[in-house]
């Protein structure tokens, strides 16, 4: 079983680089540190563009920076993959076998 993670590790990474919230906000192209603060306090999730900007700033992958969120999304995708597998696809061609293989792999993550 994987260890539950915090939704994100933005604060730890910002502090590691000795940056203030206002400085991070400036790098993100935001008006003030309020946005960065809300992300750090898990109040709001950033847009994809902002998440990628965090990856650039902190030199850590988005899935690492947003560990808890990634775990949640991963679980949800796995559940949906199981549902897709259960929708009995009786075809036995190579394409269906490949699809089943991909879905099974997703379902067990």
């Amino acid at each position, binding site marked *: 079983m994987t260890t539950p993670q*915090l939704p994100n*590790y933005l*604060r*730890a990474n910002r*502090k*590691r680089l*000795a940056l203030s919230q206002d400085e991070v906000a400036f790098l993100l192209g935001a008006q003030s540190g309020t946005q960065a603060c809300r992300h750090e*306090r*898990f109040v709001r999730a950033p847009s994809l563009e902002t998440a990628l900007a965090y990856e650039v700033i902190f030199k850590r992958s988005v899935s690492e920076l947003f560990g808890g969120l990634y775990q949640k999304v991963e679980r949800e995708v796995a559940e949906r993959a199981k549902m897709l597998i259960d929708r009995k696809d009786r075809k036995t061609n190579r394409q269906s076998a490949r699809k089943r293989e991909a879905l099974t792999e997703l379902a067990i993550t």
Partner: protein
Amino acid sequence: MLVDWGVKSIAKDKNTGSIAKVEAMIAHYQPDVMVVENTSIKPFRRFPRIRALSKRIIRLAESRGVTVISFSREQVRRAFFADGQGTKYALAEMIAKRFPDELSFRLPPKRRPWMTEDSQMAIFDAMALVLAFRLKRRERPIA
């Protein structure tokens, strides 16, 4: 991995303000364990206000379902130094080396007799408690 670290300062009604900060941190991080300094060992080395604050923090944490572990200064020193004789600054240096990215630049210069203690030393005191707890836990035999 360190998740958060720093020093918070309260201007007025320090204990009430401190409790509010601790409460917010517990709500935010939802820790399983809190490690605090044991301030109730005689002879008391802490002011009555700090001892009262410590008690309130412990009560608050326990009321939120957090397990509270306390260590005296001596227990912390013994966890790091075989003879228990290392200085506070030597311990802070060890911690800064253990977490170079996060803490090395927060280590203040060595304190001279005429200098007051740098507030940043509180981070190293807190880290020493956490690491002492982790060392102690590793010592415990697997049941």
